[in-house]
């Protein structure tokens, strides 16, 4: 399907994914996480989907899969919240990279984890999924200008932390 169709269908698909997350977790925040992860993957595969019906079916399946993944993460880490389970640090898999680069990547992750929850969510879509502000706005149902503003704020925040950590020269 064409990219512009994503902007047309995204709100309905997001609502569907949130409903699935809410029926499973009964928590709005967890449901938002489920919808975000499901829609990011759906957006990544958008051009391979033949019809809106397939997109809806895939969105439902992805949302259910995200529910199971989040639940398992929570079961593995019973003393942490769903948000922290969602925001857990992924192990650095850059075996070919130098130790110094891995250290830098870990510092960037730690800096990103200090963001407020909503900003962290938007930043993850921007930095990790490579989405633009308009696409993030469709998935999160947040105004485009607000998305841009929050991304800018997140960028400054991460930059400041890295600078304080000595990773950026004066």
């Amino acid at each position, binding site marked *: 399907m064409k990219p512009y169709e994503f902007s047309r269908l995204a709100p309905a698909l997001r609502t569907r994914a949130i409903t699935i997350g809410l029926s499973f977790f009964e928590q709005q925040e967890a449901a938002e996480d489920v919808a975000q992860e499901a829609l990011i993957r759906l957006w990544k595969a958008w051009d391979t989907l033949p019809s809106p019906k397939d997109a809806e079916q895939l969105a439902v399946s992805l949302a259910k*899969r995200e529910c199971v993944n989040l639940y398992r993460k929570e079961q593995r880490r019973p003393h942490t919240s769903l948000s922290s389970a969602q925001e857990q640090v992924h192990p650095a898999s850059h075996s070919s990279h130098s130790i110094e680069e891995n250290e830098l990547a870990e510092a960037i992750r730690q800096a990103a984890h200090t963001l407020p929850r909503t900003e962290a969510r938007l930043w993850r879509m921007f930095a990790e999924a490579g989405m633009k502000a308009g696409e993030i706005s469709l998935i999160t149902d947040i105004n485009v200008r607000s998305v841009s503003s929050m991304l800018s704020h997140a960028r400054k925040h991460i930059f400041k932390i890295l600078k304080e950590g000595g990773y950026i020269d004066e």
Partner: protein
Amino acid sequence: MNKKRIIDDYLAGKHPLEYEEWELPTAEELTHAEEEYDRLLAERREPKRRTLPLILKWATAAAVVAAVVILGTWRTNTPQPMPPNDMPKVQAEATEDTTRRNRKHNTLKPQTQHVVFSHATGGKKKRHMPVIKEAPNAMDSLPLVNDSVMLATTADSLNFYLTKIEKEMENIEDSLYMEGIAHLMEVDARLQRVVNRLVGKQVETAMQSKASVDTILIITF
């Protein structure tokens, strides 16, 4: 050193750090995930079904308790008719008080008499007056069980109480007596009305008898 370039690319959204599988899962993975979702959802909802009857039991018990309390309150507030053959409540209480006091205290000690005041129609049931005098045998002079038939109405009951008060206070000086009566009338509006009515009737009766005497005298002359 490409450290600065890595940071710049990351902040520009061109260098993702998380090497996650953004690609679509396979159809098998999705099917398995959906089955797992349905199973987990059923497990998470099952405890609610188990606790539902317990909640219903508690709700039923609470409703029964509330009904009993409401019924009890309603019956308490409803005026109960006085059995005709029973001793009036005021006498019963006074007798009970006296009996209890006699058991509790030494009989050689002088006993005090409480004036117990009650409305037959409910409301404030009992009003203890301060100790007025020592009257060990005061109850003997009061109208007792045989007079209970006469206490059927409110006015008769108040007559009884007034008689009782008068007997209690007959040996007291006028000033104290009037003060006691004034205090009683001050705290009880109904007593004021009844006393006024009684006084009014007495005055009317006296006026009528005086008028009849005058008429007889006129006829005589």
